[in-house]
């Protein structure tokens, strides 16, 4: 499994308005967001007054125990969830619905089973009304990048989980979104595949310059990938601490053995351990 990044291609996809932003500009502004789920049993506060900002080109990880509302928060940025209170703004505009400026990779690949690899990747550009030639160029470039040229005409169910997730990432990138939202995208993959996928993601990120918000419960994954890790509490989700990773880039799996990495890991672990214990007890109490 190899990803072959191609500089000319990533550039040739054409810039979105975000391209002109300076690296420090705030792209995502989550301010005082609370999300409440109503069910027959009553209301549950999933996210409790969360605020944070993500700058253009940044790689931010939301780290927290399961059920802490981190996916819900990501869904609010995507436009799938409406905040009960507060607001999510992308480039200054309030988010009200999902849109092609925010690509999303889900925990499951969620590829269209009736479409080939190429058609899955081409779906976004086709929907945006790109010409046939443009669509072909974008799809072929991305298929090349994720190293699935031989499988371009294959249907999703014939591919392994890791291959399907690569297609899913390519599909999300095909619209050249300014923001890529990733909801535990490697959670269902085996450990070896996950390491390779993480490395490839970092390479794609540096090629595309996309802003990434990445949800995970894996401490190592969060530190390895992110510029900043936002550690969340158990339900109701709040941001406990922001950890600036500050490890040099480009990063490779060897980083996991460095003392600086271990230190950060220890810091996160102490926070998460306590919260996981809480989350565990909450689940038992339910």
């Amino acid at each position, binding site marked *: 499994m190899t990803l072959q990044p191609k500089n000319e291609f990533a550039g040739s996809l054409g810039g979105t308005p975000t391209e002109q932003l300076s690296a420090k500009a705030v792209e995502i502004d989550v301010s005082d967001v609370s999300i409440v789920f109503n069910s027959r049993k009553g209301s549950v506060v999933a996210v409790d007054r969360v605020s944070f900002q993500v700058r253009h080109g940044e790689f931010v990880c939301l780290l927290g125990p399961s059920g802490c509302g981190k996916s819900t928060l990501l869904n609010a940025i*995507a436009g*799938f969830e409406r905040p009960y209170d507060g607001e999510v703004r992308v480039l200054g505009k309030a988010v009200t*619905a*999902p*849109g*092609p400026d*925010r*690509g*999303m990779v*889900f925990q*499951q690949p*969620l*590829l*269209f*089973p*009736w*479409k080939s690899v190429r058609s899955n990747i081409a*779906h*976004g550009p086709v*929907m*945006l009304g790109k010409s046939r030639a443009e669509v072909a160029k974008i799809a072929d470039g991305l298929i090349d990048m994720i190293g699935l040229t031989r499988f371009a005409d294959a*249907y999703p*169910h014939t591919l392994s989980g890791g291959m399907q997730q690569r297609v899913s990432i390519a*599909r*999300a990138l*095909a*619209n050249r979104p300014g923001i890529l939202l990733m909801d535990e995208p490697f959670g269902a993959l085996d450990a070896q595949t996950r390491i390779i996928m993480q490395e490839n993601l970092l390479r794609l990120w540096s090629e595309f310059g996309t802003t990434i918000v990445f949800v995970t419960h894996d401490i190592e994954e969060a530190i390895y990938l992110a510029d900043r890790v936002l550690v969340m509490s158990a339900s109701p989700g709040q941001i406990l601490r922001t950890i600036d990773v500050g490890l040099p880039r480009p990063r490779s799996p060897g980083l996991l053995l460095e003392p600086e990495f271990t230190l950060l890991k220890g810091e996160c672990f102490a926070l998460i351990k306590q919260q996981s214990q809480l989350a565990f007890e909450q689940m038992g109490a339910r």
Partner: protein
Amino acid sequence: MTEGQRGRLYTTVAILSVPIFLVMWEIVSRSHIVNAVLFPPPTVVAVALWEWIESGQFAVDLLASVARVAAGFVLGSIAGIVFGILTGQFPLFSAFLGPIFHLLRPIPPIAFVPIVILWFGLSESGKIFLVFWGVFFTVWLSAHLGVQKVDRGLIRAAQMLGTPRRRLLGEIIFLGALPYIVVGLRTAVSISFYTLVAAELAGAFSGIVYRIEIAQQNMQTGQVLGGLVALGLISFLADRGFAAVSQRAVWWR
């Protein structure tokens, strides 16, 4: 007996089953145990069938019946799929139409024959309407359930990629539900033949079942049984044909 011997025995018995049935039928009919006029032997049925085909009447009857089934099936299927997608996807449609459809669905379509004759007379549209009515509810229910089984994640993925609402319904949700719809359509094929029988018995001027009824009035029992054989064959072929088509309809499997 070894495994292989047993297998060969079963195959031989399966091949002989229909011929043995026909021979026994022939013997019983000709043995005066039963009234041969009421229960004609297969040879007489075969002759009746042959004369029916040779006279050219069979082609006319076949065409009339198949046209009714096809028109009713196509219209009922289209309406069933469209309404199934609407009620499956939009709770408001479901809240309004669901109770009405569930109220009408259990009424056997055949029971509508008297009122259909009053509404449409003995016209073709009345017969097509009956087939439509039988097909519609089955296809509607399968499309409705199929839409609800479509992974909500797929819809989110499509929305995230900028899929407009119309394409979402017509492509993502329709294709997502297609495996279920196809099962409903196949059930509807046999239902359309049941309702055809009712429609033609109620009054027609041609058709396979119409011919059976005329033959009965003329005491042509060979022709009656021949008509039943023809109806069984057509229904069987339609089902098999549809099974072959439906395999291809869900092309990505």
